[in-house]
């Protein structure tokens, strides 16, 4: 039951389990339409992995497969194997809610819960997981997570404002704080900055840089500079016409951006197509 151990975060970082996420031969369909073909990717612990590629190449689908959100689409189906530290998240006996709690997600569009205040939004995940905490703990968690998301100084006087009253960039950081409150081991980010201005984007990138020490991060982005700045590893997805998406090339970000093996990767990262 070590996975369910809530005291995990109190231990020093070194003794926590590594949280490497591994996808083996993952294929995905919507109905009879195949969108991903035999994707293999290792997303290493304490590294940021960026998924890049043109629209419609299956990056987001792949990301949603990693925390079992893919199966929420009624027509979706899946083949292959996804494991977290060697445990298959699709065949393991852990309930799906626990998998999703361990592998958090931040969406493209900021989606704070509109019926809750800023503070309630942060701890919403705890309530949703059915965890009971005291009021003092709750205030501590609220402050700690807002600080980690780089939002505390901006909202400390507005904790009782409605979550929707914040600006777009603040809302997205609120969503990051909310995702952090349930102490995930992996954080998946689906184009978290696509709707944000440069300042908010910078703040979120700073947040990612700080979080990488503690958790595994996988980020989908269309912004090449951002992928270059924030990631250690990079995977380039591409889908041919009427073909499912595949990984063309994956490896260290520095290599992908300077001397990739595949000419298509070089063209894409230099903005020559896609």
């Amino acid at each position: 039951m070590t996975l369910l151990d809530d005291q995990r975060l109190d231990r020093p970082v070194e003794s926590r389990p590594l949280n490497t996420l591994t996808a083996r031969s993952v294929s995905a369909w919507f109905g009879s339409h195949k969108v991903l073909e035999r994707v293999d990717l290792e997303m290493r612990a304490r590294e940021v992995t960026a998924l890049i590629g043109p629209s419609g190449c299956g990056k987001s689908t792949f990301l949603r497969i990693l925390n079992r959100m893919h199966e929420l689409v009624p027509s979706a189906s899946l083949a292959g194997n996804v494991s977290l530290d060697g445990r298959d998240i699709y065949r393991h006996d852990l309930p799906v809610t626990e998998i999703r709690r361990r592998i958090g997600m931040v969406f493209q569009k900021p989606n704070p819960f509109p019926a809750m205040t800023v503070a309630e939004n942060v701890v919403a995940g705890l309530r949703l997981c059915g965890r009971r905490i005291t009021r003092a703990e709750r205030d501590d968690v609220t402050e700690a997570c807002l600080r980690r998301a780089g939002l505390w100084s901006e909202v400390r006087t507005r904790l009782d404002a409605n979550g929707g009253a914040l600006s777009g960039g603040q809302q997205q950081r609120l969503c990051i704080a909310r995702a952090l409150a349930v102490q995930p081991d992996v954080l998946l980010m689906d184009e978290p900055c696509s709707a944000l201005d440069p300042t908010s984007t910078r703040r979120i990138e700073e947040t990612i840089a700080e979080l990488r020490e503690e958790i595994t991060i996988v980020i989908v982005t269309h912004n090449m500079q951002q992928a270059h700045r924030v990631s250690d590893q990079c995977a380039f997805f591409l889908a041919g016409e009427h073909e499912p998406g595949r990984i063309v090339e994956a490896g260290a970000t520095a290599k992908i951006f300077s001397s990739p093996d595949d000419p298509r990767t070089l063209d894409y990262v230099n903005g020559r197509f896609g």
Partner: protein
Amino acid sequence: MSVLDLTSIEELDRPPIDIRRVDPDVVRTYLGGAVASFAATWLICFQLTSMSGWVGFTAIFALVTLILVWVLAYLQWGRVLAADHAARVLIGMTAAIAVAPLVWIVATVAARGWHALSIAFWTKDLRFAGPQDPFDAGGVAHSIVGTLEVVGIAMLISVPLGVTSAVFLNEIGGSLARLVRMLTDAMSAVPSIVAGLFVFAVFIQSDMLPQSGFAAAIALSLLMLPTITRTTEVVLRLVPGGLREASLALGGSEWRTTRNVVLPTARAGIVTAVILGIARVIGETAPLILTMLGAQIFNANPFSTDKQDALPLFVWNQVKLATGSEGVALQRAWSGAFVLMVLVLALFVAARLLGTGRTRQRSSRRHERSMRARRVRTVHPEKERP
């Protein structure tokens, strides 16, 4: 020196341009059109022809106004804006026509039911008051309590059922949901007298229930249920799917997602659904005649064999007693209708307050707490990254 520098700082404190300004030319166009149209219509109706009905007058007035506004606008601003102004006038007039019956009804009931503004009418029942007795000898206290209890019990039955059905239809779905949705739609078409007959045949004739407020509440809940279910389903569908996904991605179960995210987000809409449900049944008379019969005497127990009364029944019975177009019974009938309207208004206001009140209270409590916490924290200089 740029143009902006001409405006001094003091002036900039006020909005320098009034963007809400109503263009006087537009006002002149509308007013001119209306006045000219009124004169023309008067000429047509009362001078040239011998029409005298006010319905015809209003129709011709509206039509002529529309044409005149279009012509006036066309002469000033051209074809595109003329159509714009004509459409605005047309839509405004349509809205006025739609609201007119409501205003008319309320005004009529208020004008004829003003007798209800007496304490005796609200506090007495009819046990000592016959149709010949003075107005203040009796009142609607027994009917008010009956209506409140019957509608209240009907709500207790149909709100939980309706909201859970809507959750089933929207959050779970599947092929069974299609069947449930179809049956709910069919149920909403059931005439109210049939609902009353159903309860009469199944519960009252079989001696399972006496004719009572409770039996009436069952009949009304049958009428309320489809309204609440379908309206709630629609408002649940308006909750963005992204919120459900966000909740599930945090590790929330489906039940907790529904309870903590979906339902609170749709809260105001669900209150609207309940209000529509109340509105559907509170004026129903036919099912009550069969199921609770009506009474003259105060009875607050909806389960007892002593009958209960309700406001629509009161109005119905008083109208039956009335002779001619005057008399105390008719006064009582109109006053009963007046009380019913006031009650409906009060219920709707209460429901609205209930729909938004809790969140406000809770947040103000939290606010207090965090203010306290903030005072404590400022003692320690905080460390935060830039």
